[in-house]
């Protein structure tokens, strides 16, 4: 393994997250009860997605400045794993909501839930990014067009998942300020697990991305060296 200290950190943090996440005590909350432990898993997926997409746009801008194919490979792989995290976050959210919201809210309220719609739009914008990439055969053109598009896709994340859900009435907790980062709402015991969990899951995403990047670099060795 290459540069392995952060990979070891990732393994330790994830094992700590699972053990601490299941066994440590949590504050008593109505509606949520023990499902509040999902904070260490569901919310971390969205944090990971946001960080990976940020890395993706940084490399997209880097590509537009340098025109190096390497930067395009970095950018697209961060976007791919970020989308995977987004899908996992969405799926876990569906499970969580179906055991907590359905008891107190009507199905109309749930289907018109701005956070769900916003997250769906944000993910679909990134799906379109991969469709766009797949439709262009010329390598340089593909890299350039998708780098420009990914900037728009990233900017689209902000109204879709950060701004609009906060302006509208929502069932999703954490509408005032930052969800889960609000110090008044989040118990100290939960922060003990939550922050390491964010780092652990994000590092896992970065690890998977790094493997995909290295594989792509190997595949395109002839073009990159030529």
């Amino acid at each position, binding site marked *: 393994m290459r540069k392995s200290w952060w*990979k070891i950190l990732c393994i330790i943090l994830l094992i700590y997250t*699972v053990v601490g996440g*299941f066994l*440590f*005590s949590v504050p008593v909350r109505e509606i949520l009860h023990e499902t509040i432990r999902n904070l260490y898993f569901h919310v971390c997926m969205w944090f990971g997605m946001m960080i990976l997409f940020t890395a993706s746009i940084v490399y997209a801008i880097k590509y537009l400045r340098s025109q190096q194919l390497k930067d395009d490979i970095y950018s697209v792989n961060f976007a791919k794993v970020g989308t995977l995290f987004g899908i996992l976050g969405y799926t876990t959210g569906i499970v969580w909501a179906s055991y907590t919201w359905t008891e107190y809210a009507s199905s109309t309220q749930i289907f018109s839930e701005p956070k769900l719609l916003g997250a769906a739009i944000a993910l679909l914008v990134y799906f379109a990014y991969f469709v766009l990439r797949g439709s262009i055969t010329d390598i340089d053109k593909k890299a350039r067009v998708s780098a420009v598009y990914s900037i728009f896709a990233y900017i689209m994340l902000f109204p879709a998942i950060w701004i609009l859900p906060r302006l509208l009435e929502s069932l999703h907790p954490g509408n005032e300020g930052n969800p889960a980062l609000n110090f008044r709402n989040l118990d100290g015991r939960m922060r003990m697990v939550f922050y390491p969990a964010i780092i652990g899951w994000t590092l896992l995403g970065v*690890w998977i991305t790094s493997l995909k990047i290295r594989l792509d670099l*190997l595949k395109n060795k002839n073009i990159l060296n030529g």
Partner: protein
Amino acid sequence: MAKRIASLFFSLLAFLPATLLAQVADNQKKYTAFEMRSNGKIYVVVAVVLIILIGLLLYLIRLDGKITRLEKH
């Protein structure tokens, strides 16, 4: 003499656990998840999730090693 002191010491020690254990039990009741841990077999779930997580991580490590070998080749 030493034997008698030792036996006295151990007989004193025998009284300690009763009070100590009562304190520990009271402390543990303060935690909300205590009941779940004592009778809900949550440890089984933790073990299962840990096995899956460690299995996936080992797979990732192996994949990492394979790519490293491919890079050196």
